[in-house]
């Protein structure tokens, strides 16, 4: 996989998927957004692919690969990443009052999901989960 931010080659599956999800979510709810400095990388560790998101003039830019300047890096298996996007949220984080939310919180504690920057950049994490949320 090529690290870095962007590529002129055909985007990988994760990039097409996340880009499509973000665009469709923004059509449903244009208030979702990233703020300046919210640079994020999402890694599907089992598939050895990554995608990065950053705010852009048109909304959100979604590009192939890891961004070395990412303040938040989310790493998990492919299915777990989609479960994260599909989970009910409360205040931008998985809802502990639902079974799906509790399962994801357990995944965080057992490090099936790793979120680098979770504490230091909690606001970025919340905006990311809102942006990706399929709810």
């Amino acid at each position, binding site marked *: 996989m090529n690290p870095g931010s962007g590529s002129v080659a055909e985007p990988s*599956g994760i990039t097409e998927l996340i880009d499509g*999800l973000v665009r469709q979510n923004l059509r449903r709810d244009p208030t979702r957004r990233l703020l300046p400095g919210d640079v994020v990388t999402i890694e599907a560790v089992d598939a050895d*692919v990554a995608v990065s998101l950053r705010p852009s003039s048109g909304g959100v830019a979604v590009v192939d690969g890891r961004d070395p300047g990412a303040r938040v890096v989310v790493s998990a298996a*492919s*299915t777990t*990443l989609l479960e994260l996007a*599909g989970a009910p949220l409360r205040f931008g984080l998985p809802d502990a009052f639902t079974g799906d939310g509790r399962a994801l919180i357990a995944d965080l504690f057992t490090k099936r999901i790793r979120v680098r920057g979770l504490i230091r950049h909690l606001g970025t994490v919340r905006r990311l989960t809102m942006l990706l949320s*399929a709810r």
Partner: protein
Amino acid sequence: MPTFPTDAWFQAFVVSINGSEEYRAAAEDWEGDIAFLVQAEPDVHVPDDVWGYLDLWHGTCRGGGVVDPAMGERAAFLLSAPYSRWKAILLGELDPIKGMMQGKLKVRGDLPTIVRYVRAANELVRLTGEVDTVFPDEG
């Protein structure tokens, strides 16, 4: 034993889906038909594209089979891959979600809906493995 990807295979798949309590629970609110485009690989005895179709509704499958491309294109969701990739999925050699992330399995449709039903999708794929299958390149 049905050959993949024929109409008989998809009919057997429908029976398998409707016999699954796990699928019924995971997809109890699902509304939407799914098309499966099996792209041709003439060198392994799949000379033409094949469009499979499932009419999925609230945890059951109301029907399915091989359809013409126009009907397949009209489905709410489309999953497409070359024959050999589908074979790997049926044999459990390729995880479909991982395949989507790697671009080996293409998906079209309302992605937020697909994401909300990822467990149902996984169960659907697991059920393909319960269909006794003959592969044309192994005949």
